[in-house]
């Protein structure tokens, strides 16, 4: 019997190596797998490349992972926000690398990795400093830059429901980067609010099919998120 549901965070994190590229879902706090990030801190892997839309907030979660010196590089679209104190300190001190990627390019690069597309062309960033050093090419009279697939060793995602085959659903805007990250990583670990029996999810409305998910763990996000 296939059973991707794990009972402990130690099982969920098993095998994550130093030097991994870790894709972390969420847009702000929504759809962000907080409990998995805490477990990654506990797990201890270091020299990580983290891909996330934001560069952490306050001194918890991704910010804490950075503060502990575990993150070599961050790939994101929006590093600077009111709460990104840890990132800014580390970055000014030259202790963390940064790759800024337009948000849509970031999503598309991961989708490409999941879909077997090593590179594609996009109009986004043409004529800006973010296109510096990138190959450019005209199609039908318009200029595009070539972007490469962005693959993860690990993805940490948050779903709403999950089952033992790894099928996931998402709630409202909690979906965001999670489905593309799930398909772009070798090892995809999902935290979900609810475990469902196999067959309870409506086949037409599974948002991430289990083929893209390695492990599922139930977390209690508290009454506000229920």
């Amino acid at each position, binding site marked *: 019997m296939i059973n991707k549901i794990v009972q402990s965070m130690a099982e969920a994190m098993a095998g994550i190596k130093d030097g991994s590229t870790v894709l972390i879902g969420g*847009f*702000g*706090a*929504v*759809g962000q797998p907080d409990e998995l990030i805490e477990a990654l801190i506990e797990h201890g892997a270091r020299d990580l490349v983290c891909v996330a839309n934001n*560069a952490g907030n306050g001194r918890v979660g991704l910010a804490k992972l950075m503060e502990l010196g575990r993150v070599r590089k961050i790939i994101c*679209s*929006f*590093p*600077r*926000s009111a709460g990104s104190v840890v*990132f*800014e300190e580390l*970055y*000014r001190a030259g202790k963390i690398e*940064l790759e*800024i*990627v*337009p*948000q*849509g*390019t970031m*999503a*598309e690069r*991961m*989708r490409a990795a999941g879909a077997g597309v090593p590179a594609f062309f*996009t*109009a*986004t*960033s*043409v*004529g*800006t*400093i*973010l296109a510096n050093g990138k190959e450019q090419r005209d199609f039908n009279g318009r200029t595009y830059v070539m972007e490469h697939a962005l693959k993860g060793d690990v993805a940490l995602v948050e779903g*709403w429901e999950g089952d033992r085959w790894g099928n996931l659903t*998402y*709630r*409202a*805007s*909690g*979906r*965001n*980067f*999670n*489905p*593309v990250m799930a398909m772009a990583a070798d090892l995809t670990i999902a935290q979900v609010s609810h475990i469902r029996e196999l067959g309870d999810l409506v086949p037409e409305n599974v*948002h991430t099919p289990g083929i893209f998910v390695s492990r599922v763990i139930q977390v209690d996000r508290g009454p*506000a*998120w229920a």
Partner: protein
Amino acid sequence: MQGFDRKAMAARLAQDIPEGWYVNLGIGIPTMVGDYVPLDREVILHSENGILGMGPAPAKDKVDPWLVNAGKQAVTLRAGGSYCHHADSFAMIRGGHIDLCVLGAFEVAQNGDIANWATSENDTAPAVGGAMDLGAGAKRLWVIMEHTTKDGRPKLVEACGYPLTTPRAVKRVYTNLGVFDVVAEKGFVVVDLAPGVLLEQVQAASGAVLHTQ
């Protein structure tokens, strides 16, 4: 010289959005535009984080923590709205399906260049978000911003000094002083001015020639 306040700017822009358009509103004044679209005119708001058919902010006791806009503020979903993932959401933007994007800006140049994401090439960690995707992908880009910086420097310019977000993308600019089209091989063309504002005043506050129609 008074001109529009921020609410009036947002309302002025809102009156130019026809029914049926798919519209992405950036953070700040652009977000306010949504509040001034008449309720009987169906305009479908898109948010980068996978929302189509976004509604206004909820009552405080109706906040759903799973539902935020691109500025991470609590919002609602209208009947007919739907959710999708980030790559599908940006396919809407990058594939040319969004009729209009409204952004704020540091500068707009007379050739339509927009700079709104980084204040210098040496900015250590500028935050681009979805601005470059929207600038390059939406069918139309309109900018809404104060006509000058807080210290009085013009934001309508001959050429941008700040790093570009997207070249030759802006079609129209709404400021506290008026509305200006960006016309190819001509530059800024005055559409109309805020009440009580004179053309020579606006010209004096601008860093590029303002043409009249």
